[in-house]
Protein backbone atom coordinates (compact mmCIF):
# COMPACT_ATOMS: atom_id res chain seq x y z
CA UNK A 1 0.00 0.00 0.00
CA UNK A 2 2.89 2.28 0.89
CA UNK A 3 4.56 1.66 -2.47
CA UNK A 4 1.26 2.15 -4.27
CA UNK A 5 0.80 5.60 -2.74
CA UNK A 6 4.36 6.65 -3.52
CA UNK A 7 4.33 5.49 -7.12
CA UNK A 8 0.78 6.74 -7.62
CA UNK A 9 1.82 10.19 -6.48
CA UNK A 10 4.88 10.06 -8.75
CA UNK A 11 2.89 8.97 -11.77
CA UNK A 12 0.16 11.57 -11.29
CA UNK A 13 2.68 14.34 -10.64
CA UNK A 14 4.60 13.31 -13.75
CA UNK A 15 1.39 13.23 -15.80
CA UNK A 16 0.54 16.74 -14.64
CA UNK A 17 4.09 17.76 -15.47
CA UNK A 18 3.67 16.47 -19.02
CA UNK A 19 0.62 18.59 -19.72
CA UNK A 20 1.70 21.68 -17.77
CA UNK A 21 5.34 22.10 -18.82
CA UNK A 22 6.16 25.05 -21.00
CA UNK A 23 9.00 23.31 -22.79
CA UNK A 24 8.40 20.11 -24.77
CA UNK A 25 11.71 18.66 -23.57
CA UNK A 26 10.50 18.81 -19.97
CA UNK A 27 7.26 17.21 -21.07
CA UNK A 28 9.15 14.33 -22.65
CA UNK A 29 11.24 13.83 -19.50
CA UNK A 30 8.13 13.88 -17.30
CA UNK A 31 6.65 11.32 -19.67
CA UNK A 32 9.70 9.14 -18.99
CA UNK A 33 9.05 9.42 -15.25
CA UNK A 34 5.42 8.49 -15.76
CA UNK A 35 6.35 5.40 -17.76
CA UNK A 36 8.90 4.36 -15.14
CA UNK A 37 6.27 4.66 -12.37
CA UNK A 38 3.91 2.51 -14.43
CA UNK A 39 6.66 -0.10 -14.79
CA UNK A 40 6.81 -0.22 -10.99
CA UNK A 41 3.06 -0.83 -10.93
CA UNK A 42 3.48 -3.71 -13.37
CA UNK A 43 5.96 -5.32 -10.99
CA UNK A 44 3.51 -4.87 -8.13
CA UNK A 45 0.83 -6.49 -10.31
CA UNK A 46 2.98 -9.59 -10.89
CA UNK A 47 3.66 -8.66 -14.50
CA UNK A 48 7.44 -8.61 -14.48
CA UNK A 49 7.76 -9.23 -18.20
CA UNK A 50 5.44 -6.31 -18.92
CA UNK A 51 7.54 -4.11 -16.65
CA UNK A 52 10.66 -4.99 -18.64
CA UNK A 53 8.88 -4.39 -21.94
CA UNK A 54 7.47 -1.12 -20.62
CA UNK A 55 10.94 0.14 -19.78
CA UNK A 56 12.48 -1.07 -23.05
CA UNK A 57 9.72 -0.05 -25.47
CA UNK A 58 8.16 2.99 -23.86
CA UNK A 59 10.97 4.51 -21.83
CA UNK A 60 13.65 3.33 -24.23
CA UNK A 61 12.23 3.66 -27.70
CA UNK A 62 9.21 5.94 -27.60
CA UNK A 63 10.54 8.64 -25.29
CA UNK A 64 13.83 8.70 -27.22
CA UNK A 65 11.86 9.13 -30.44
CA UNK A 66 9.93 12.01 -28.86
CA UNK A 67 13.15 13.60 -27.68
CA UNK A 68 14.66 13.29 -31.16
CA UNK A 69 11.71 15.07 -32.73
CA UNK A 70 11.56 17.74 -30.02
CA UNK A 71 15.23 18.50 -30.50
CA UNK A 72 14.96 18.45 -34.29
CA UNK A 73 12.16 21.00 -34.35
CA UNK A 74 13.69 23.03 -31.55
CA UNK A 75 12.06 22.71 -28.16
CA UNK A 76 11.53 26.38 -27.56
CA UNK A 77 9.29 27.75 -24.88
CA UNK A 78 5.64 27.72 -25.82
CA UNK A 79 2.85 29.50 -24.07
CA UNK A 80 -0.34 27.92 -25.17
CA UNK A 81 -1.76 27.06 -21.76
CA UNK A 82 -2.38 30.58 -20.56
CA UNK A 83 -4.57 31.60 -23.47
CA UNK A 84 -7.00 28.75 -23.93
CA UNK A 85 -8.78 30.51 -26.74
CA UNK A 86 -7.28 32.71 -29.40
CA UNK A 87 -8.18 36.32 -28.81
CA UNK A 88 -11.45 37.31 -30.40
CA UNK A 89 -12.69 33.78 -30.87
CA UNK A 90 -16.19 33.33 -29.51
CA UNK A 91 -17.04 29.95 -28.19
CA UNK A 92 -20.32 28.53 -29.42
CA UNK A 93 -23.09 28.65 -26.84
CA UNK A 94 -23.53 24.90 -26.66
CA UNK A 95 -19.96 23.98 -25.70
CA UNK A 96 -20.40 24.73 -22.01
CA UNK A 97 -23.61 22.71 -21.85
CA UNK A 98 -22.01 19.81 -23.71
CA UNK A 99 -18.96 19.94 -21.43
CA UNK A 100 -21.21 19.96 -18.35
CA UNK A 101 -23.20 16.96 -19.60
CA UNK A 102 -20.03 15.01 -20.39
CA UNK A 103 -18.49 15.87 -17.00
CA UNK A 104 -21.65 14.75 -15.19
CA UNK A 105 -21.66 11.49 -17.14
CA UNK A 106 -17.98 10.88 -16.33
CA UNK A 107 -18.35 11.62 -12.61
CA UNK A 108 -21.58 9.62 -12.38
CA UNK A 109 -19.98 6.66 -14.13
CA UNK A 110 -16.89 6.74 -11.91
CA UNK A 111 -19.00 7.17 -8.77
CA UNK A 112 -21.32 4.34 -9.75
CA UNK A 113 -18.33 2.13 -10.40
CA UNK A 114 -16.70 3.00 -7.08
CA UNK A 115 -19.86 2.62 -4.98
CA UNK A 116 -21.29 -0.53 -6.51
CA UNK A 117 -18.06 -1.85 -7.92
CA UNK A 118 -17.67 -5.23 -6.34
CA UNK A 119 -15.47 -6.99 -8.85
CA UNK A 120 -16.35 -10.61 -9.40
CA UNK A 121 -14.05 -13.28 -8.07
CA UNK A 122 -10.98 -14.61 -9.79
CA UNK A 123 -11.66 -16.88 -12.76
CA UNK A 124 -8.26 -18.34 -13.42
CA UNK A 125 -5.97 -20.10 -11.03
CA UNK A 126 -2.56 -19.36 -9.66
CA UNK A 127 -1.10 -22.19 -11.72
CA UNK A 128 -2.20 -20.81 -15.09
CA UNK A 129 -1.34 -17.26 -14.06
CA UNK A 130 2.12 -18.36 -13.06
CA UNK A 131 3.01 -15.10 -11.29
CA UNK A 132 3.15 -13.40 -14.68
CA UNK A 133 6.44 -15.07 -15.49
CA UNK A 134 8.00 -14.98 -18.93
CA UNK A 135 7.30 -18.68 -19.31
CA UNK A 136 3.59 -18.33 -18.62
CA UNK A 137 3.12 -15.31 -20.85
CA UNK A 138 5.14 -16.92 -23.64
CA UNK A 139 2.98 -20.01 -23.37
CA UNK A 140 -0.16 -17.90 -23.80
CA UNK A 141 1.37 -15.84 -26.58
CA UNK A 142 2.50 -18.77 -28.70
CA UNK A 143 -0.55 -20.98 -28.27
CA UNK A 144 -3.81 -19.16 -27.62
CA UNK A 145 -2.79 -15.83 -29.11
CA UNK A 146 -0.52 -17.06 -31.90
CA UNK A 147 -2.49 -15.43 -34.70
CA UNK A 148 -2.75 -11.93 -33.14
CA UNK A 149 0.93 -12.22 -32.24
CA UNK A 150 1.83 -12.90 -35.86
CA UNK A 151 -0.42 -10.07 -37.00
CA UNK A 152 1.55 -7.62 -34.88
CA UNK A 153 4.59 -8.34 -37.05
CA UNK A 154 2.59 -7.24 -40.09
CA UNK A 155 1.58 -4.15 -38.14
CA UNK A 156 5.19 -3.32 -37.36
CA UNK A 157 6.11 -3.81 -41.02
CA UNK A 158 3.34 -1.39 -42.01
CA UNK A 159 4.65 1.04 -39.41
CA UNK A 160 8.19 0.85 -40.79
CA UNK A 161 7.05 1.34 -44.39
CA UNK A 162 4.72 4.18 -43.40
CA UNK A 163 7.45 6.00 -41.49
CA UNK A 164 9.94 5.61 -44.35
CA UNK A 165 7.45 6.79 -46.96
CA UNK A 166 6.41 9.79 -44.86
CA UNK A 167 9.89 10.84 -43.82
CA UNK A 168 11.39 10.55 -47.30
CA UNK A 169 12.11 13.78 -49.08
CA UNK A 170 10.02 14.60 -52.13
CA UNK A 171 11.84 13.79 -55.33
Amino acid sequence: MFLFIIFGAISIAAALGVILSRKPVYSALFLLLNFAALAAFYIMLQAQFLAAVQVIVYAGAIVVLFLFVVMLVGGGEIRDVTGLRPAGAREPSWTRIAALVLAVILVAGLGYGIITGALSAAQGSVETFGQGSVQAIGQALYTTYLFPFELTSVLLLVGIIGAVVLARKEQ
Partner: protein
Amino acid sequence: MVPTSFYLILSALLFVIGVAGVALRRNVLIIFMSVEMMLNSVNLTFAALANHFMKLDGQVFVLIAMTVAAAEVAVGLAIVMEVIRHRDTTNIDDVNLLKG
Protein backbone atom coordinates in the same frame (compact mmCIF):
# COMPACT_ATOMS: atom_id res chain seq x y z
CA MET B 1 -2.23 -6.06 -0.92
CA VAL B 2 -3.67 -3.11 -2.82
CA PRO B 3 -7.32 -3.49 -3.89
CA THR B 4 -7.82 -3.68 -7.63
CA SER B 5 -10.24 -0.74 -7.56
CA PHE B 6 -7.38 1.54 -6.49
CA TYR B 7 -5.50 0.68 -9.65
CA LEU B 8 -8.64 1.34 -11.69
CA ILE B 9 -9.14 4.74 -10.04
CA LEU B 10 -5.49 5.65 -10.58
CA SER B 11 -5.69 4.67 -14.21
CA ALA B 12 -8.91 6.68 -14.63
CA LEU B 13 -7.11 9.69 -13.15
CA LEU B 14 -4.18 9.28 -15.53
CA PHE B 15 -6.59 8.92 -18.44
CA VAL B 16 -8.43 12.10 -17.46
CA ILE B 17 -5.13 13.98 -17.19
CA GLY B 18 -4.30 12.78 -20.69
CA VAL B 19 -7.68 13.96 -21.96
CA ALA B 20 -7.08 17.34 -20.34
CA GLY B 21 -3.72 17.53 -22.08
CA VAL B 22 -5.28 16.81 -25.46
CA ALA B 23 -8.03 19.34 -24.83
CA LEU B 24 -5.95 22.16 -23.38
CA ARG B 25 -2.59 22.08 -25.12
CA ARG B 26 -2.13 23.19 -28.71
CA ASN B 27 1.39 21.90 -29.25
CA VAL B 28 1.14 18.83 -31.43
CA LEU B 29 4.01 17.02 -29.67
CA ILE B 30 2.49 17.47 -26.22
CA ILE B 31 -0.89 16.33 -27.52
CA PHE B 32 0.83 13.23 -28.83
CA MET B 33 2.49 12.62 -25.46
CA SER B 34 -0.91 12.93 -23.77
CA VAL B 35 -2.29 10.31 -26.13
CA GLU B 36 0.56 8.01 -25.16
CA MET B 37 -0.25 8.61 -21.49
CA MET B 38 -3.88 7.64 -22.12
CA LEU B 39 -2.76 4.43 -23.85
CA ASN B 40 -0.56 3.67 -20.86
CA SER B 41 -3.35 4.19 -18.35
CA VAL B 42 -5.50 1.70 -20.24
CA ASN B 43 -2.57 -0.74 -20.20
CA LEU B 44 -2.47 -0.35 -16.43
CA THR B 45 -6.17 -1.24 -16.29
CA PHE B 46 -5.52 -4.38 -18.31
CA ALA B 47 -2.64 -5.44 -16.08
CA ALA B 48 -4.62 -4.73 -12.88
CA LEU B 49 -7.59 -6.78 -14.07
CA ALA B 50 -5.30 -9.58 -15.28
CA ASN B 51 -3.88 -9.69 -11.77
CA HIS B 52 -7.36 -9.58 -10.25
CA PHE B 53 -8.86 -12.35 -12.35
CA MET B 54 -5.64 -14.39 -12.31
CA LYS B 55 -5.78 -14.71 -16.09
CA LEU B 56 -2.95 -13.90 -18.46
CA ASP B 57 -5.17 -12.58 -21.25
CA GLY B 58 -4.90 -9.02 -19.99
CA GLN B 59 -1.12 -9.10 -20.06
CA VAL B 60 -1.11 -10.42 -23.63
CA PHE B 61 -3.43 -7.56 -24.58
CA VAL B 62 -1.01 -5.10 -23.00
CA LEU B 63 1.83 -6.52 -25.08
CA ILE B 64 -0.18 -6.12 -28.27
CA ALA B 65 -1.25 -2.61 -27.27
CA MET B 66 2.42 -1.74 -26.74
CA THR B 67 3.21 -2.97 -30.25
CA VAL B 68 0.42 -0.83 -31.63
CA ALA B 69 1.72 2.15 -29.65
CA ALA B 70 5.24 1.68 -31.00
CA ALA B 71 4.02 1.56 -34.61
CA GLU B 72 1.69 4.48 -33.96
CA VAL B 73 4.47 6.63 -32.55
CA ALA B 74 6.77 5.88 -35.48
CA VAL B 75 4.15 6.82 -38.07
CA GLY B 76 2.68 9.66 -36.02
CA LEU B 77 6.01 11.37 -35.44
CA ALA B 78 6.82 11.02 -39.14
CA ILE B 79 3.54 12.80 -39.90
CA VAL B 80 4.38 15.48 -37.32
CA MET B 81 7.79 16.02 -38.88
CA GLU B 82 6.19 16.32 -42.30
CA VAL B 83 3.65 18.86 -41.05
CA ILE B 84 6.37 20.88 -39.35
CA ARG B 85 8.46 20.80 -42.52
CA HIS B 86 5.53 22.02 -44.63
CA ARG B 87 3.91 24.54 -42.30
CA ASP B 88 6.81 25.45 -40.01
CA THR B 89 4.68 25.30 -36.87
CA THR B 90 3.89 22.94 -34.03
CA ASN B 91 0.59 24.61 -33.20
CA ILE B 92 -2.29 22.50 -34.43
CA ASP B 93 -4.57 25.53 -34.65
CA ASP B 94 -2.44 26.65 -37.59
CA VAL B 95 -2.91 23.30 -39.29
CA ASN B 96 -6.63 23.28 -39.93
CA LEU B 97 -6.86 22.40 -43.59
CA LEU B 98 -6.99 18.88 -44.93
CA LYS B 99 -5.53 20.04 -48.21
CA GLY B 100 -2.66 22.18 -47.13
